[in-house]
């Protein structure tokens, strides 16, 4: 799998193992709009693996064609229906904790 992009985000809520959360529920507006540099070209509807290190992961589809070096955000990578898909939390985490979000092109 090829690295598509990564960014460090701050959890806006505390979560417990087993909770169902998504990219919108976990991060506030400033983090949802934090720039993520695209590292490789990809076409619309390409499935990427979104990994919140240690917390959870989910496969999501890109919402548009992406070009290397573009600056994207959670909002401009994924349509609402994708970014609001729930994933299961693998551990407890506190609000304010920094989490690395990695996106891999499968």
């Amino acid at each position, binding site marked *: 799998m090829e690295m598509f992009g990564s960014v460090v985000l701050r959890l806006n809520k505390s979560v417990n193992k087993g909770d169902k959360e998504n990219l919108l529920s976990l991060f506030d*507006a*400033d983090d949802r*709009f934090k720039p993520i540099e695209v590292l490789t070209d990809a076409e*619309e509807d390409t499935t990427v693996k979104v990994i919140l290190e240690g917390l959870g992961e989910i496969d999501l589809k*890109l*919402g*548009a064609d992406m070009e290397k070096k573009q600056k*994207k*955000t959670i*909002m*401009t*990578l*994924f*349509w*609402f*229906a994708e970014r609001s898909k729930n994933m299961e939390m693998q551990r407890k985490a506190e609000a304010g904790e920094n989490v690395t979000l990695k996106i891999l092109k499968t």
Partner: protein
Amino acid sequence: MDMRSINLVVKDLDAALSTYLKLFGTNNIPEILRVKGLNDGTETIDGYYLKTQPLNLGLWAPRGTTGRIGQFLQKNGEGIHHLTFQMEQDEFEETYTRFKAQGRPVSNKIAYLGRLSEAFFWLDGSGEQGVPMQFGTKCSRGLKLWENTDYLDTPKVIEPAKINEVHIRPRIVLNSAMVTINESEKQREVWASILSREPVIQGNIFTLEPGQVNDGRGNIFIPVRFGFSQSKGINLYRAINPEGPINKVMRKKGVKGMYHNLACYVTRDQVHTYFKQLEDAGFSMVDPKPALNTNKGNGNYFFFVHPRSAFGVLWEVVSIFIRNEAVKAYYDWSDTKVYMLPPDEKAGNL
């Protein structure tokens, strides 16, 4: 009565101006006025007045925290504060008298801006309509209601602003404000009375058939539109699902109505270009690209710019269309250059 301007309250006027020059493009704003010391008898504000078309856009910063706009900024932060409606002088005076007789919370006194010979009054947001509104007239004679008017030597300065920035955008038309309300029938009657016109149903913008609109983000609306000249208008949305985000926000704020977003319209073959221009300029785009609206065969592209990058205002951008006298919509191909099939000049029957 006609819609004249949309007015925002901001903290940093120059930063807001710079942002809105980038949003609209300097080519879409024929004139910008710098206004200093505008006093309505209750508070003093400074601002820029952008002659966007057909609706103008005011950017205002209050000097204090106790006046109408100052309090709003303290309580709600930056964003849409009010719409201004222009009337002929007779209608203006009749409307002020009518609102007072109806018990609506209008200004105690009309404000006469001496340097412009313009008169205004407020309809407070505590009224049944739920949002602040301003009504004005360009006077052509002395006011009959002079005894109920504050004659003010204001504004202290109003002059064309010198703009050095250049941002070229496709044609952008600003003509719509979206208002959300919490009670459909009663609110519709209130707004119809205030605006002196009946709304048209907007479930389908081409046929005016009733219907619900699902915004895909948890809100389901029943929309109606109060139309004005040059395709201007106010869309009144009743979000019918109580647990939708908009109803939650209105309950939290304890309001009956709320200015929800503004809408501008862009040359039909330039929507994707404009999206990229805004993205490159650092605006917070809400989705990956313009979405194609398939609701009831709508056929327009649309996208949103998040309020965090636009001084508290959610902007909706749509492929340009115009409305005929019946407020039915037709695609506007007037400045589209890219096509395989040329537009039918007779289409729309406008």
